[in-house]
């Protein structure tokens, strides 16, 4: 992860040498706190909660209580407003969620408890998303239309048109929301999503989201992609598009609200590119240490809340301590929970059939 921190200026340098506008200048951002106090404080609370959860998962990895960590610290300012705006429920009347593996803050904002993520990190039998079968951050929750998160990058963009098609036919205001990173947009599945969502006269209600942290593991965005704004790729398909400051929860909230209202009402796609930070590297494979050179959306937000007289330093510290302790306690308890039994590997190979070894 020190490697990541050292490389922080590489994308900026590459952009400069290519004669492109600097990263920040491309993004709309408002200094105003144009939301009501209760919402601002609630967003702050959930952002901190999500950060503490991810930091607990990282600590579990580092102390041998999990094999691999991947998650979304640094994306809370975008992921929390997203979760608050989702129409949560099961079936086509509600939003279908095709997420990638950096979305714990979205789940917490939707009302999920953190214990499930901790169980998945520890791969216990009680892991509510995969029963100890999958990595951290690989959520699945049918009650909320959250389809299983997969490790292969970008496949979710190929599936999203399917749920959106059913929703378009169903009517109402349920939409499909698909998220992924900037590096993955190089995959053909991203193009598939743009093509299938914008067939003339058969446009689909999909909110297509790319969280752009400018990294694909260790490779800077500017080394691999020539398009300045990923959102511009939607223009060729006649889509509404926007690049937003995903490190600012206020503009994220307002921009997502506008985009969602459009998709819900017009039943057409909208492509949002959110510029975000990656605060603990790609995954535990690169060490999962804090990236000091990246903007931290929580400390930035806290400074603004403090300046506006909405939150003191002591209050912010108290929120963080409360969640840190809470997740530490939960993790201690989860460590004692059982792993799945080896004989359970045959369960759920086929729906509606008892698990059995077919060659036995």
């Amino acid at each position, binding site marked *: 992860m020190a490697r990541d921190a050292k490389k922080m200026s590489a994308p900026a340098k590459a952009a400069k040498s290519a004669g492109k506008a600097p990263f920040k200048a491309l993004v709309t951002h408002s200094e105003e706190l144009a939301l009501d106090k209760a919402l601002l404080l609630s967003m702050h609370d959930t952002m901190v909660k999500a950060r503490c959860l991810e930091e607990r998962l990282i600590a579990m990895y580092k102390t041998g209580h999990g094999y691999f960590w991947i998650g979304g610290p640094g994306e809370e300012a975008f992921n929390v407003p997203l979760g608050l705006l989702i129409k949560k429920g099961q079936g086509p009347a509600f939003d279908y969620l095709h997420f990638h593996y950096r979305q714990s803050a979205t789940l917490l904002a939707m009302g999920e408890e953190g214990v499930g993520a901790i169980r998945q990190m520890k791969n216990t039998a009680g892991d509510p998303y995969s029963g100890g079968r999958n990595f951290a951050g690989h959520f699945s929750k049918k009650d909320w239309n959250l389809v*299983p998160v997969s490790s292969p990058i970008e496949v979710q963009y190929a599936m999203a048109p399917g749920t959106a098609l*059913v929703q378009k036919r169903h009517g109402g205001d349920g939409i499909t929301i698909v998220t992924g990173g900037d590096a993955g947009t190089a995959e053909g599945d991203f193009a598939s999503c743009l093509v*299938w969502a914008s*067939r003339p006269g058969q446009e689909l209600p999909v909110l297509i989201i790319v969280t752009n942290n400018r990294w694909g593991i260790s490779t800077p965005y500017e080394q691999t992609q020539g398009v300045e704004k990923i959102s511009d790729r939607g223009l060729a398909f006649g889509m509404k598009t926007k690049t937003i400051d995903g490190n600012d929860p206020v503009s994220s909230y307002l921009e997502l609200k506008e985009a969602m209202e459009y998709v819900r009402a017009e039943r057409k796609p909208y492509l949002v590119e959110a510029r975000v930070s990656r605060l603990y590297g790609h995954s535990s494979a690169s060490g999962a240490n804090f990236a000091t050179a990246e903007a931290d959306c929580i400390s930035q937000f806290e400074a603004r809340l403090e300046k506006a007289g909405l939150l003191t330093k002591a209050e912010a510290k108290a929120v963080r301590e409360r969640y840190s302790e809470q997740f530490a306690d939960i993790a201690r308890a989860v460590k004692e929970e059982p792993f799945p039994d080896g004989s359970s590997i045959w369960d*759920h190979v086929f729906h*509606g059939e008892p698990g059995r070894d077919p060659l036995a």
Partner: protein
Amino acid sequence: MANMAQAVRMALHFAEENLGVTDIFGEDVGMPLGGVFTCTQGLKTTWNSPLDERGIIGTAMGIAMAGGKPVAEIQFCDYIYNTIDLLKLAGATHWSSNGQWNLPMVVMTPVGSGIRGSIYHSHSVDATATHIAGWKIVMPSTPLDAYGLLLSACKETNPVMFLIPKALMRIRGTELIPGEPTEDKALSRLIDAPLGDRTKWAAQWPTLEDASIPLGKAKTVRAGSQLTVVSYGRTLPLCAHAADAVAADGLDVEVIDLRTLWPYDWEAIKASVEKTGRVLFVNEDTEVTNFGEHLVRRTVDELFFKLLAPPKLLAGKFVPGIGLADPLEAASVPQQSDIEQAMRALIAVQP
């Protein structure tokens, strides 16, 4: 009697009317063409997709996730290979979510040689398909079986891959599909789209019946006592003809049509091999890491002491493609003469 393309079409009609099929789609699947093999002419839920196999499989998964029931077509199985990780993901969805999500979806695709399809319209996919856990894999060899197996596929709540041997697509069946008119050309007048302008044409569907054939059940198409031959798809009728041919020399061969490759009917194979003591597996996919090799392995593992001869696999040659010229195709995939030869050789072996 219906051919296999018409049987598939009638099954899909029955399925969209009675089994909740919501979307039959793929490249050129909708009208005016109704599929490059005419399997989807005149159906009410068909539509033409973008030319994008990954989009087709991904969208089918999404439709299934949202409560629809899709039948997606990959125009030739030669073009399914760029979707392999999506197929794996579809097969893994129920398992990886620990039972939360399941995908009731059918993927149908024409497979195999026999239409002089050259390098990229002659592939088989059964070895690859049976390697992907979480899928049921079906391959009929007669129109009636195609009809009944496709109905079962559409009733499934798991992903099913329905492999259609393209060499058999135009071969008329010998058994009536329940509801099919008895007069030979009557069916064509009812459900085959006319040449030329089709904008005003609509299929006149006969009243069809649910003649589902359960998945996982093989069919003994010819009883015999000296040798068991297990096959499916294009090579199945070749095996039956070969068995008839060697019967003239007094050889008595049993032929089993596996019909479902996964889960397959081991009990049928086992019972037959225990009776004959000799077994020949025949298919046309390339022979290295072939599905038939698994069947040979299981035969050796479980039936070794019942065998009078080593179990044998006759399959396609392990070459990158099937060449266009007649002699190249004939040299690449099993022909009737190859099967006859293998039958005689196996029966000649004495322990």
